[in-house]
């Protein structure tokens, strides 16, 4: 059973010629089949956690460990992590001019699966996955994320999630910038992947509305670079009612 273990993770970034510590000791275990919601105020370090797990070069791990089934994730290159089963749906997906979506998806699937998918079944697989996400077939011929609206970018991220079938899915604010219909479509996509029971999900969000569609097993409040409170789905209801004030003002960020 796939397990991601994050232990006492400390992360810094270089900004304005100074080193700034963003993550200040994160502990979290995500098991296959579980869904963890990470909720917290703007700037608390949620994306930093997501990027650090995926291996973005801007973030420096100063101490702590991350393992996937006992394997040291921090030792792996970005592409190795993805092939090991870590998937990050980005808050702000990147435009890659000159590379078509279809070419990108196939190259990516080939890398992650370890062999090129059979052309005939692949075309069908992509087409059906796109249909389920209400994506027009013409997206396949467009350049990766180029000129996509915010919502289209998020659908494209979830399309990749469905095709790559990771062990651990980190979804950074996949709900932001979506209208109600798009939120439902994207949530259904995430749920299809979760229903397979093979993925452990880390759902990073600022708002509770996506939790109406995706029921988390655990909710963690993230503030000041660490998890300050953990609970079940009821914790989200409390956040909905009370907001983050208590965690921000209560000194948890200090």
């Amino acid at each position, binding site marked *: 059973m796939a397990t991601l273990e994050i232990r006492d993770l400390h992360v810094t970034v270089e900004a304005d010629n100074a080193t700034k510590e963003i993550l200040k000791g994160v502990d979290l275990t995500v098991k296959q089949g579980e869904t963890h919601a990470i909720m917290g105020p703007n700037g608390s370090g949620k994306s930093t956690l997501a990027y650090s797990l995926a291996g973005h070069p801007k973030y420096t791990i100063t101490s702590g460990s991350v393992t996937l089934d006992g394997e040291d994730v921090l030792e792996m290159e970005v592409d190795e992590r993805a092939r090991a089963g870590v998937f990050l749906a980005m808050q702000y997906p990147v435009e890659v001019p000159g590379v078509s979506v279809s070419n990108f998806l196939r190259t990516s699937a080939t890398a992650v699966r370890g062999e090129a998918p059979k052309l005939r079944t692949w075309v069908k697989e992509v087409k059906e996955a796109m249909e389920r996400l209400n994506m027009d077939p013409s997206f396949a011929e467009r*350049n990766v994320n180029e000129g996509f609206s915010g919502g289209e970018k998020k659908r494209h991220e979830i399309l990749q999630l469905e095709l790559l079938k990771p062990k651990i899915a980190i979804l950074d604010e996949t709900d932001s910038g979506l209208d109600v219909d798009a939120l439902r479509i994207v949530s259904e996509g995430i749920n299809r992947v979760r229903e397979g029971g093979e993925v452990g999900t880390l759902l990073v969000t600022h708002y509770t509305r996506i939790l109406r569609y995706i029921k988390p097993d655990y909710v963690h409040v993230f503030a000041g670079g660490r998890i300050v409170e953990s609970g079940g789905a009821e914790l989200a209801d409390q956040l909905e009612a009370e907001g983050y004030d208590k965690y921000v003002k209560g000194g948890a960020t200090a």
Partner: protein
Amino acid sequence: MAEAQNLPVGSTTAGSVAVAAESTVATRMSAPPSFDVADFPVPHGREEEWRFTPLDRLKGLHDGTAKADGALKAEIDAPEGVTVESVGRDDKRIGKAGTPVDRIAAQAFSSFEKATVVSVPKEQVLDQPVRVTLHGEGGTTFGHTVFDIGAFAEAVIVIDHTGDAVRAANVDFIVGDGAKVTVVSVQDWDDTAVHVSQHNALVGRDASFKSVVVTFGGDVVRIHPRVNYAGPGGEAELLGLYFTDAGQHQEHRLLVDHNVPHCKSNVVYKGALQGDDAHAVWIGDVLIEAAAEGTDTYEMNRNLVLTDGARVDSVPNLEIETGEIVGAGHASATGRFDDEQLFYLMARGIPQVEARRLVVRGFFAELVQQIGVKDIEERLIAKIETELEATV
């Protein structure tokens, strides 16, 4: 990354599009066109036509100190029916397609000993390309080649440059009425070479001329394709592809002079750059003269910067002297393959080398497909892959 501009007829914008009573392209030059090198002052580097070029790396081609002391192995593989002659400067076909417009072009003209004239008779349709292989064996050489394509003939010409050379040589294309010509000039020199060349095409009535300029090698390469039309109905397609590595200066200057009515031109140049002090220059001058009613023209330059330390100068310039045209537009854009794009692709399991390849292949793919000469297309793709592997 795109910054395109399409001009409605007769409109004007600030910058590089001008609706002018008289062309400034000619007046920007240091001297009027001439076959005599003495008519051009020695450039000092601030002239409009020289300001991007590293004069100190030209091995004296620009200031008269370069002496013809080198060797160049030339082979011409001509299909049946094609004639190859070696002629003197007084041959009437020489200079018919155009006159040198800068000092090095004039130096080449003043310095070559014999010119080569390759002729395709009228109405002859070649089923094999004419292949010209030029291999530099060191030192300085000058040259002049004329391709004289008869009316309604069809030909593909491939000119290959390899080896080490300091070379100033002009190439003329006389494209007869109704003829169809594709020329591919590949600059695959050693990284020590210096190559300066003016290409002059005179496109006949209803003729079509396609020029493909491919530059990979060389220390300094400066190619100057120019198109004039001899009659209405002519079409010119100027395609270019370059891969500029660390320390290389690759300059492509183009001029399309729409001097007669109802002609078309389409210019597409794309380049990738990688490494410290890789420098690509693209100048695209298109003139639509007052007489050139019904002109349809578009020019585009795209650059992809793969690493820090590379520099691009891209200057499209469109001058319109008549509003009675079908269309005129230009676009120039330089994009970066940056760390965020690399991260995104790698976060999907794609290894770094593969990620770079994906981006560069995608960038060039469409252009390569437009070349229309199969073995050249395949060779280019292979070459691009090697260039990529050399540095990542």
